[in-house]
């Protein structure tokens, strides 16, 4: 009995402090609605009730308690989704072993990251907070909603979003483990064997568990549990990759182990093997135009997204950067310069398609009745270079409003934060920060950064 009291008293503070996710109701009136899936509605209204899109149409009526946004002359699109970001987490790389499937960035969520607010100011409502690319099999990632204002990490999570995990090919794991620690993998051959070993061990672990008699089985192993879940199709792989050969390699390995849920990230040479990606059913999340910052992206083209899209690969454009995430609408617009995608195709690159890649397209990624009330409103068409986000709405709650936007939006001022901290990213050609995936690796002092 005493034991139960202790447990209950331990639970009380958790119950007190765990916040409810705020869900709003509102009417957005008279805007040009870019639904992404069902064309464009001129002078349309969107009624959001309890965080969900309740009705789309004309002359919809708000109840007296509802906020009303007059979107006359404005453009209304689904909240932007970034399938590759490192915002809202305190740690990115567990760069201590080529396989670290057991770690989870969701254990290090940081709702105070000002980058979240700045992403909202760019119309972005959901992002995929990813583990870094130091390891061939990195950690598990978390899909977060940009509910800026909460101090509760739990509220950031997009509940019920499928589990995802980071894999990485090529130079990064080779550099960190091969060059850095003198262990495999130092080559793309070695990277293949890391996957084959990990999956084979997980298969054996699964078999031993299945053959368990009287509760006696293999010693519990979190890493093996996670790898088993990958083999069972319970986790979507998001794999940092660049070169065509390494991408084909991983598809071959996955075929051998019966795994098929994968989105290739960056995938700068995806255009070279677009038919193979389409046949496998792999999707691709790319940069609009980043290239030449390292050798494995020297043979790139900004037409990558268009070629992938035209070959039937589900394609998104991501940021991997706290700067780029502020204007993904502009990054998507570049697919019109490089390959002539239509407005709907270009908008899908940052809404519906990343939603599919994260397995959340039943909830977000388009303006449809029943979906989450995640909306971005712009002064002009969001694919114009002159577009300025006006409102960003998450679950029917206005989280960014350009008319009520004080300079300092920090939720928490760290007394140890140096007010002289400056971020002079002198164009990513110089700052090396554009490999956001390698954050933490060189800061731990484990490795000297090589330029």
């Amino acid at each position, binding site marked *: 009995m005493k034991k139960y009291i202790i447990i209950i008293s331990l639970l009380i503070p958790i119950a007190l402090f765990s916040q409810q996710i705020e869900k709003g109701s509102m009417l957005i009136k008279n805007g040009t609605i870019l639904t992404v899936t069902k064309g464009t509605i001129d002078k349309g209204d969107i009624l959001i009730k309890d965080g969900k899109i309740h009705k789309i149409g004309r002359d919809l009526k708000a109840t007296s308690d509802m906020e009303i946004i007059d979107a006359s002359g404005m453009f209304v699109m689904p909240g932007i989704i970034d399938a590759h970001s490192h915002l809202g987490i305190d740690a990115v790389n567990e760069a201590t072993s080529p396989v670290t499937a057991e770690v989870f960035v969701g254990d290090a969520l940081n709702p105070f990251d000002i980058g979240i607010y700045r992403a909202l*100011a760019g119309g972005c409502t959901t992002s995929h907070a990813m583990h870094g690319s130091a390891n061939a099999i990195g950690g598990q990632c978390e899909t977060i909603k940009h509910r800026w204002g909460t101090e509760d990490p739990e509220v950031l999570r997009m509940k019920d979003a499928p589990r995802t995990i980071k894999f990485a090919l090529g*130079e990064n794991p080779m550099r960190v483990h091969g060059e850095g620690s003198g262990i495999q993998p130092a080559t793309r051959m070695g990277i293949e064997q890391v996957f084959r070993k990990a999956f084979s061990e997980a298969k054996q672990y699964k078999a031993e568990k299945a053959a368990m008699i009287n509760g006696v089985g293999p010693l519990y192993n979190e890493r093996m549990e996670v790898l088993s879940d990958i083999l069972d199709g319970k986790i979507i792989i998001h794999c940092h990759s660049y070169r065509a050969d390494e991408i084909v390699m991983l598809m071959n390995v996955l075929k051998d182990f019966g795994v098929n849920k994968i989105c290739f990230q960056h995938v700068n040479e995806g255009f070279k093997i677009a038919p193979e990606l389409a046949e496998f059913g792999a999707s691709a999340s790319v940069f609009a135009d980043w290239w030449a910052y390292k050798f494995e992206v020297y043979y790139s083209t*900004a037409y990558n997204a268009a070629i992938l899209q035209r070959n039937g690969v589900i394609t998104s454009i991501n940021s991997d950067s706290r700067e780029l995430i*502020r*204007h993904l609408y502009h990054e998507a617009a570049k697919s019109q310069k490089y390959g002539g995608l239509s407005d709907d195709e270009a908008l899908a690159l940052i809404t519906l398609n990343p939603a599919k890649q994260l397995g959340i397209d039943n909830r977000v990624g388009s303006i449809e009745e029943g979906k989450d009330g995640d909306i971005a409103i712009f002064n002009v068409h969001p694919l114009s270079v002159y577009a300025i986000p006006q409102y960003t709405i998450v679950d029917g709650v206005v989280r960014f409003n350009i008319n009520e936007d004080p300079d*300092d939006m920090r939720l928490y001022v760290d007394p140890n934060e*140096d007010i002289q901290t400056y971020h002079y990213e002198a164009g990513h*050609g110089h700052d090396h920060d554009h490999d956001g995936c390698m954050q933490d690796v060189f800061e731990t002092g484990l490795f000297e950064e090589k330029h």
Partner: protein
Amino acid sequence: MKNLIYILLLLCVSISLNAQQIGKSTYGAFALTNAKIVTFNNGVVEGTLMINDGRITSVGADINIPSDATVIDCEGKFIYPGMIDAGTTLGLNEIGAVSLTQDANEIGDLTPHMEALTAVNPNSVLIPVTRVNGVTTVLTNPTGGRFPGRAALINLHGYTPQQMYAGFKGQTMNFPSSGRRGRWDRRSDEDRKKQEEKNLKSLKTVWDQLQLYQQVKNNLESGDRLNYNPELEALLPVYEGKEKLIINVNKKADILSAIKWVQDHKVDAIFAGVADGWRVADELAEANIPVITGPVLNYPSKNSDKYDRPYANAGLMHKAGVKVAIRTNETENVRNLPFNAGFAAAYGLGKEQALKAVTIVPAEIFGMDKEIGSIEVGKQANIFVCDGDPFETKTTITHLFINGWNVPMESRHTYLYDEFLDRSPGLKN
């Protein structure tokens, strides 16, 4: 018959060899007809732009077209002056993470005798990728150290650095800063302050040495020998106010300190970067120092800053009366210059001024406005033809002229598109 096959085979070989190379440019007389020509002194002129022997020879509605001119019908299209990126490392650096392809950063703190033009690679794969977006001219900068070397203005066309040279060189400087150099800079406030003071002191030493060097040099008598000192020799024109000094400075306190230094030493200065320019816009205007700011598409410098400061910075400085040009400070993506200008335009600079900030304003800052930066008779024919607003991503550039050369709209990126859009063999041969 055998000969014919041989010729066909040769043709095949030459075609496949050429597949990854840029086609040849053409030169001579060109008439760009039926165009809307965007000039700064005469507004938008509808009519013909004539190019001959590298120069713009006429602009207007009623122009006789010589019979030998190549006519390009620009019906429904616009002609703009080629864009100038006033701060890049294009041509010096090739692949970011491969150090042996990087020529911008020489070892040493005091290397003003390094000449960027020397190491410009005319065959850099990045150059065609850049120019097909309408950027015809860039300033390419040496980087690193206090005095990294002499920057050079280059046109993005030519087979030797000298062919590319666009007529301006200027010394560069990274002004001593008390700010952190990045997220990874873990020095304490005190350590950084100490380092800054030390740097300012060593800067003073350099100027003292220059003073001495000048005195000695001016008082040499026949038979005297002055030791070889390329560093001081390279800085002497700056010391004497005969050469411009491009000073990279970003933080508010550093900008104020740099203004004072420039005034104290009577340096002909241009400020570059200037991320905090909006905080001290009035002081910059008062000091009458031109600014090359950017990248515009950048992250705010402090966590407490409003999210749009980097976008709005150029407009805020312009409003205060500062002469503002825009740069990308990029290498492989200098091609995003029009988009940097577009964001600055949207966030307060305005379209017209943003266009000037990437054309005539940098030309004026470099003292090259008689040659480039606008469409005027007699200027170098650096222009592009497009079907809409030059900053919009939807706009297509159809023709490009650099120094009068009609340059093919081709790059590695277009070749890879052509080859792989509909790959052959596809999935199954």
